[in-house]
Each structure stands twice: as structure tokens, then as C-alpha cells.
């Protein structure tokens, strides 16, 4: 998973794509997932971290991470 380097990102979840100029507001868990992706963690490890941090079940966490990554790909903020 490659995360684009063309953005401004704050820990509060504000994201400005410096390629398209689109802005995004991520909620707390979204910002957390994005930070983990930036660190280079894969989807499985991020799902585990979500379970630990937010107490959600593994299936929900894995699904949410997968959906989130797909949205990033849709906006060309991430690529395989």
C-alpha cells in the first residue's frame, strides 16, 4: 500500500490533497487509520490496532479499514 505524499495532514484529521486541492475531514478513527498507513502498517495490523484502541470487534475493524483504504484509492490518495 502506497500512500500519496501530496498532502497536508494534521493529527486532528484535516487533510488537504496538494494534487487535487480537495479537502477532507477525517473523524478520530479515520485520522488514526491514516496515521498508521503513513507509518507503513498494513491493513491487518491497523485493524488490530483499531480493536485495541477503540474496543471494536475484529470483523468490524477489518471491514472499516478495508472500506477506508478503498475510499483513499478512489480519491487517489493511496495505491496498491
Amino acid at each position, binding site marked *: 500500500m502506497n500512500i500519496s505524499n*501530496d498532502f497536508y495532514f494534521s493529527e486532528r484529521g484535516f487533510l*488537504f*490533497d*496538494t*494534487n487535487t*486541492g*480537495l*479537502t477532507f475531514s477525517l473523524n478520530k478513527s479515520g485520522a488514526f487509520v491514516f496515521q498508521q498507513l503513513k507509518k507503513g502498517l498494513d491493513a491487518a495490523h491497523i485493524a488490530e490496532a483499531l480493536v485495541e484502541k477503540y474496543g471494536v470487534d475484529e470483523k468490524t475493524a477489518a471491514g472499516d479499514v478495508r472500506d477506508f483504504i478503498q475510499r483513499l484509492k478512489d480519491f487517489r490518495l493511496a495505491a496498491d
Partner: protein
Amino acid sequence: MVHCNVAVTGLNAMEDSLPGIPVIRSLRAAGEELTGKIIGLTYDTFDTGIYNSELLDEVYLMPYPSEGETAILQRLKEIVKKTPIQVLIPTVDAELVSYSRLEPELNELGIKVLLPPEDRIRLHQKQQLGAFCYYNGIKAPRTITITDPAELSAAAKQVGFPFVLKGTFHDAYMVSSLPEALVFYHKIKEAWGLPMVVQEYIKGEEYTVVALADGSERLVGAVAIKKLRVTGTGKCWAGGTVHNEELLALARGIIEKLRWVGPLELEFIKRPDSPGYYLFEFNPRFPVTVYLVTRSGHNFPLALVRLLMGEKVEKLNGYQAGVVSTRHTVDVIAPMEYIESLATKGELIFDWKRKKEFKKELISYE
């Protein structure tokens, strides 16, 4: 460092803001790199930017472009007798052809301008842009030129509602019905005359590319901006610089095809449901977003002055993406003597002592 007096037009910043003040702010941002006077050339005593004594050294009233080139030249002859002008940056669409035609006479007065020939300037006129795009394979909204309100109905059938009704030089209104189109037809006709164009409305994200080409049609630089806040008439009041190589490459190709000389702005729309960008407008001058461009690292107005003063200007690369600006209005308090000077003598010379006194007066007033 370059030393010269620079005259700038287009100092009115009402609903449809002109780019003169952002150009001057860019020149002021050059600091000691540019020494000399900044001279405002204006059309009306109450043009909104002219009483800003922090930005301007002198202001002169000019005849309207509609009064003809002889009147413009005559007025400039009077002005340069008082204050020589080495560089003139016109920023109003309606005056560009006149300044381009007058270039030899301006040179005789010691004034330099960086403009393409008349035929290339006229390409920006909305009725010509569609043909230019068609013949050069550039994606553009469908555009139909009309000269009679009876043509609105047929044009609407071709492009569908809503569409954008545009004047040749200024004004653009999105219309959703024939009665609404008729109202704006007459409004535009009264302000800007005929013809006007019916342009297909494309919904999407809007971008603009601001660029400068030198006298040899060499691109000095280009900066892409995402419009973040757009008014009902399509004016950008908030924008952020972006690095979008697809867009910049497209813009570079268009500028090459235009064989452009001087400043320009290309405006694009990106549809969410299809690839590529649609060119929907082309402005043959600096846009109001030029100060944002300056703050991203490319001071095009300064580069233009340096080019005209015979300096070598290297290609500008590597501007900063993610620089955001918002435009807002401020009240400028003007002493009555300033207004009187401009109204009665057609000129206003800002005196630095008076500036200081006036600042004190303002502080005590506030």
C-alpha cells in the same frame, strides 16, 4: 534589483474584481528587488483600490477604453511628462487590444508592455475560444455564439438547462429557464454589448492555471490553483495552489498552441464522472489570484517587469503547493483632499508626510 516606475490598471475591486491590486501587492512583495514608483491608472474617482496609499505612489485618471486609442495615448503623454513610466501592466480585458495596438507609440514614450498581437488576444473572447478548442483537440464545454434573444431557445435546446450566459469580456450567469436567460441577456447586452455566448454548464471541481510567457513565447512559469470558494458568477474568492502534473501539462500544451506572450490564466473544470479537464475560459492577463501565486513562490508580476527591463529571467520551477488564500473586502478611508485631487486634477500624488498625518488622524478617529 530592478529600478523603474510601473503603472498598473484595473484597480476596481467590486463584485467582479479586477486584478490591479493583487498585481501591485505582488510588486510590493518584491521589496528591494524592485525600486521605483507604483502608479495606478484608473477610470473612476471611486474605483475601490485607488486610495490605498500603502500600495500606490501616484494615481491618474484615464479615459475609458471606449473613448479610443488616441485618447489613451494622449493621456499617457500627459502623465509621462510628470512621471516617467517604464513598464505598464494592463489588467482589464477591454483595454488589452488597445495597448497591444499602441505598443510602438508606447515604446516611443519609453513605456514597455508585454502583450501578444491583437489576433491572439482576441482568442480569449468567448465566441472564439470554442473554435480554438475544437481545432486543437482541447476538451471544452459546448459554446454557441448569439446576437439576438430569439436565438436563446435554439441554443438552450442544444446545450440544455442550466447553461451559462456570458458576455464577450465580463459577466457570466448560470440560467435555468428561458425567462431567466432573457433577463440576463439584456443585462449583459447593456453592460458589454453583443455578441454573447451560451455555454454548456459542466458541474465539477474548478481549477485555474496562472502563467507567464516571455516575448519569445517561452514559458517562464505556470502555477495551478484549485478554486475553493466560487461566487454565483464564477469568481474565485478562495483558492489553494496544487501540484497537478496532468493539469499543468495540459496548460503548457495550450499555451504553446496559443503562442502566448505575457501573462495569462486558463480556467478548467474537472468532471467527477470522466477523465480530463475542460477548458472553459481563458483570460489574457494576470488574474485576481496572482498574489496567491506570488506567495506560493512565483512572483510573475516582478518577473514580467524584469523581462521588460531587459533582465534575464530564468524559468521558474518548484512553487509551493498547499498555499491557500481567501479574498475579503476592507473599508479604505480616503481624506476628502485625495478625492478632490483626483476629481478635479485627474491625479493623486500620495505625499509621505500627509500619509503619516492621515494615519494619526485615523488612529484618533478610531
